[in-house]
Structures are given as structure tokens and as C-alpha cells.
């Protein structure tokens, strides 16, 4: 019973089953269940206080759950201290030992395992190659830049070949440009080693760019688990939709049904259409559409299919590649629209009347009520 699962590829690397953690009156993690596959890059995404860090610290062993099981490659590890768990962690501010050299930092776990010195050195050199810091063995952490310290922390956590690497907002302390670069590096290292990565962040861009799957957390529960595309394109809840990317959401009553589609009429020429097999006439739908899915045309136009809303441009924000239009629509809701900056929308200015259109597939329903 204790062994069979080790090499079984269907056994999750990490399995959370009904995990709950309370701090006093606050339930930080509330009955969370999650299977993390072997070799997967999974991100726990959510605002601060959502329970993502606590969840990670429970996997590492720094917190013990009040309830539930945590299985590491099939074995329950609840009650086992962090030094006896087969996972390693990358800390938010790297937590490199300041009184040790880069080599001593990276070889720390090998030294504890009494690996002979020359063998240790070989391993360190190999790890430094993987994180592209060749020749830095003798430096001290204080002599390294933030990005280099990050690489040392990675090497130190990976040298032990852990069952999973836990990363706690590892890029938070870096500037934007370096962060983008490290995102690619992290992904490269993860693919190269095939290690399971559990990544905690509040940054949705990081989550979208690196993850195989994202678990969006809020108030101690996982609101949605899915691939970046699923989470971004088809958010299950208003929270997910709002937290992952900018979002336009509007609550309207269904006027008529057109086959599978629910139609919400604003006037003769304007309407919102959304696929809604289950919703009948008279139901209230919270409909969402991403800013980049909306087409923007100057003036009032009309056409046949899809959704169509007119409005007045309140603000134009030039973002470089994109231009962001804030449009006060006829339905009383301000919409945000992203268009490529080199398009014909360049002439659109504040105060202009514009028409916003999008197809039926681009909208999704976040909530339905009668």
C-alpha cells in the first residue's frame, strides 16, 4: 500500500483532499481538493489573503491542515515536518543564506545528506549550468543582482530533485523587464527538468504565460481550475472573470430566445446575444465580454448578427501596441475596448459616438438568476 503508487504515472504528484486551515476565526483554506499531475506547471492564482500561500505552506509542511489529507506521490504527509518532505520551496525574497557562498547555498541539502565534497561540487556546477550562472560558485548572495539571486534560489531548491518545486511569488521583487525574462527561464527550466512546479502568484499575466493549469483562488476556495485559455475565455464565476484580465460585464433580462441563443434587446438596432441553452425568457443574465474581443467602429452602424451596442467615447488611453477605449454605452455601463493601435481606430477621439460589436461566441455567462 505504501509503495505501489510511486512510479504509477496516473498517481498525482500532489493531491489535496478536503484540506482546511483555520487561523483563529478566519478560515484561510476551506475544504480545498486538488490533484496536481506529475510534471505539471500549476499556478495558484488569487488576491492576497485568498489562501494560496497557506495552501503552499501546507504542502511544504510549514503549516498543518486542521482537516483533510495532503498526499505526496500517494503518501499522506500530514504531520511530517518540512525537512522530511520531498518537496522544496523557492521563497519570495529568495532566502539565500547570506553567510554562505553561492556554492555553499546550492549544496546545502547535499551537505546535510553527507554527499562527499567533490561530488557536491559536480552537482553544483551542473545546476549552475541549468540556471545559466556558470562561474558564480564563489560569490556571496549580496554580490548578486535580484535575478541572479533568483537563479541561485532555484538551483538550491532543484538540486535535490524534489517531487515538486513550490514557488512563492518568486518574481515579485524583480522589475518588469527582468520578470518577463525570468518567466521564460522558469518555463524553460521546468520543461528541461520535467519537475512538477506549483507556482503561487497574484499576477494573472504570470499565471497565464507559464501555467499548464491555473487554480483561481478566492476566500479560501478554488473558484475555477483549468488551462489558461479556459480560465481566460470561459470564466466560471464573476470573480474569476474579473480577476483574470479586464472585463466588461452587464446584467440584462432575456427578451427572446433565438434557438440556443438568448437575446437581450436594447432597441431596434441594438442587442446583446449570448449562447444560453438553459436560460428561458425573463431570466436575468450576467454577461461578460473581454475588451479585445470587441470591434469598435466610428459612428452608428447596423448589421445582422451578434451583439451591438452604441456609446460615447469617454477616454482614449494609448498603451503602445494597444489603444484602450473607455466607452459609455447606451445601457448605462462603461465598456473597455482594446484595439491594435495601428488600425483605423486611430482617428477615434473622446466625445465621438462609436458602435461596439462582438460575436455570440465571444460572450460568456457568469451568473444566471430569475
Amino acid at each position, binding site marked *: 500500500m505504501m509503495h505501489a503508487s510511486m512510479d504509477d504515472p496516473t498517481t498525482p504528484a500532489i493531491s489535496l483532499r478536503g484540506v482546511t486551515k483555520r487561523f483563529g476565526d478566519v478560515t484561510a483554506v476551506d475544504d480545498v481538493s486538488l490533484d496536481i499531475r506529475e510534471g505539471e506547471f500549476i499556478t495558484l492564482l488569487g488576491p*492576497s*489573503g*485568498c*489562501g*494560496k*500561500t*497557506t495552501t*503552499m*505552506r501546507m504542502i*511544504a*509542511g*510549514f503549516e498543518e491542515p486542521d482537516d483533510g489529507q495532503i498526499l505526496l506521490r500517494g503518501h499522506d504527509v500530514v504531520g511530517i*515536518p*518540512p*525537512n522530511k518532505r520531498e*518537496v*522544496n*520551496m523557492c*521563497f*519570495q*525574497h529568495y*532566502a*539565500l*543564506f*547570506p*553567510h554562505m557562498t553561492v556554492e555553499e547555498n546550492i549544496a*546545502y*541539502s547535499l551537505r*546535510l*545528506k553527507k554527499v562527499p565534497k567533490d561530488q557536491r561540487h559536480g552537482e553544483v556546477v551542473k545546476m549552475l549550468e541549468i540556471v545559466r550562472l556558470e562561474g558564480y560558485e564563489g560569490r*556571496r*548572495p*549580496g*554580490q*548578486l543582482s*535580484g535575478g541572479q*539571486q533568483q537563479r541561485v534560489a532555484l538551483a*538550491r*531548491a532543484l538540486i*535535490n530533485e524534489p517531487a515538486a518545486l513550490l514557488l*512563492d511569488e518568486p518574481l515579485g*521583487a524583480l522589475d518588469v523587464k527582468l520578470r518577463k525574462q525570468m518567466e521564460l527561464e522558469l518555463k524553460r527550466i521546468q520543461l528541461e527538468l520535467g519537475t512538477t512546479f506549483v507556482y*503561487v502568484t497574484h499576477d494573472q499575466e504570470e499565471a497565464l504565460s507559464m501555467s499548464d493549469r491555473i487554480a483561481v483562488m478566492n476566500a479560501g476556495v478554488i473558484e475555477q481550475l483549468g488551462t489558461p485559455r479556459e480560465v481566460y475565455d470561459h470564466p466560471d464565476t464573476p470573480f474569476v472573470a474579473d480577476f483574470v484580465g479586464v472585463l466588461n460585464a452587464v446584467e440584462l433580462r432575456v427578451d427572446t430566445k433565438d434557438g440556443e441563443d438568448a437575446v437581450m434587446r436594447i432597441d431596434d438596432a441594438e442587442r446583446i446575444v449570448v449562447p444560453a441553452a438553459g436560460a428561458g425568457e425573463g431570466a436575468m443574465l450576467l454577461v461578460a465580454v473581454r475588451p479585445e474581443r470587441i470591434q469598435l467602429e466610428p459612428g452608428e452602424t447596423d448589421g445582422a448578427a451578434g451583439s451591438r451596442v452604441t456609446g460615447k467615447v469617454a477616454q482614449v488611453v494609448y498603451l503602445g501596441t494597444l489603444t484602450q477605449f473607455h466607452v459609455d454605452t447606451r445601457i448605462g455601463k462603461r465598456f473597455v475596448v482594446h484595439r491594435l493601435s495601428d488600425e483605423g481606430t486611430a482617428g477615434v477621439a473622446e466625445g465621438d459616438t462609436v458602435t461596439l460589436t462582438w460575436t455570440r461566441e465571444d460572450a460568456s455567462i457568469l451568473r444566471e438568476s430569475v
Partner: protein
Amino acid sequence: MNPAISKGGRRALWAMFVLLTIFLYAPIVILIIFSFNNREIVSFPWEGFTTRWYHEFLRNSELLNALKTSAFVALLTAIMTTALAVPAAIAFVRRRFFAKGLVSGILLAPLVIPLVVFGISLLILFNTIGIPQSALTIAIGHIVIALPFAILVLVPRIERIPPSLEEASRDLGAGGLTTFRLITLPLLFPALISAALISYTISFDEVVVASFINGEATTFPLYLYSQLRLPRKLPAVIAVAVVVMVVSVLVVVASEVGRVLADRRLERQTGGSVEELALSGGKG
């Protein structure tokens, strides 16, 4: 220069500083002068420079024994106090426990309890439970007096060691003791030295408590005090006091310089982010 202070105000502040310095150091300067005065009685006039008082104290075996006793008591105090202060300080900074305020109050109380009262209490206690008085009982008394100082020296340093360093060590496979030995202790080392030196100095010149519980043992301050009745021996006593003082000052200055340098090094090594690290404890 602070433009908010007028020229007159600045002069007044300087004058105050100078007066305060004289007030603090004049007695010490006088002592040094008299230790070189070639006169049997400790007073002016100046009768010529001599080092004979220094030679005399080196021949005084009673005095040298007292110095030895003091050195032993102070060393014992320094080692024991530091050994006790480290776990106490770590507990204060890292752990939450029942009645923490009360416990810290009890540990720091010796700072405010009058030494005379404490000395009498110890005397009664040792008599009641039948512990013979000796250099060891003096050391016990001194450990209690020095402990709050040692704790107060260690606490700020521990506060600046990010808990994530200890967590990283645990995460990488080290148990609690190994983490303490390989991570906490080396980072704590400069403060450890400071705590030991402070305990040493406190013990070395403590006379009140020692006078109650010394038994047959005579420490240097006790000897000094007893010699005040014999004016003939006073010049030599002053000479040895000067030596002790100079040595103490050198040791304290050296340790402070060492501590500041070590602090700067830690600062550089961690890229000045130690505080930042310490603040980013548990969240999420």
C-alpha cells in the same frame, strides 16, 4: 547644519556638550593623573611622574588574586548568561506563548530591582537552602543581573534575521538543531559576542550583590572597596583601576567596531534587504 537653530543657540548647545563631557570624564582623568603621581597621599600637589604604583600592584598577591577571582566570575557569568539569553531572546522574537508579557516582565525585572534588595534576598535564599557562599554564588547573582542586558542586546539582531532563512534550511532537509547550528548561530554571532562582553563587564565591576554573597572569595571591586580604609595602599589601587578601565574601554570599543562591521557585511550580503525580508513573513 540645521538652519532652524540660531547661532546663539548653536553655541549654547556646544557649551552644554562640552560641560557634560567634562562632567562625565573629569573623575576618570583625575584618576589617571593620580595614578602617575609620585606621592603617598592621593591628592595634589604634583610631585613628579612615577610608575611605581603600577609596579607595586603587580607585587600585591592579594590584589592579583582578587583580579583572578573577578576574571573567573565574570567569565562564568558571560558564558552562562549568553547561553541562557539566546534561547530566551529567540523565544521572545519567534514564538507566541501564553503570558508572554508576564514572562518578559519577570525576565527583565532585575533591571529595576534595587541591587541591595536583590543581594539580601540571595543571601537569605542561599542560607535557607544551604548553599555555601563562594565565587560560584557570586556568579549566580551576576547571571541574574546580566541576563536582561544580554537579552536586550540579542533581540534586535534576531529580529533582523528573516524567518524565511530558517524555513529555507528546514525545507532543504535540516532539522531544528541543525538549522540553529548552521544558520541562526552564525548570523547571530556578532550579537553573541556583544552579549557576552556586556555580561562580562557587568559582572566584573559589580560590588553590591557580590558583597552579600561572596563568602571567602574576594572580587576585584570588593578588594578595591576594602582598601579605601587604608590610605597607604590607595595609590596602587588607583593604578590597577586605571589598567582595568583602559582594558575595558579597549574591549568594548573593539567589540562595537566588530559588530558594526559584521552588520554592514550582512547588509551587503543580503543586498540591504534584511528588513524587507523580515517584514514579509506569513501572508496570503
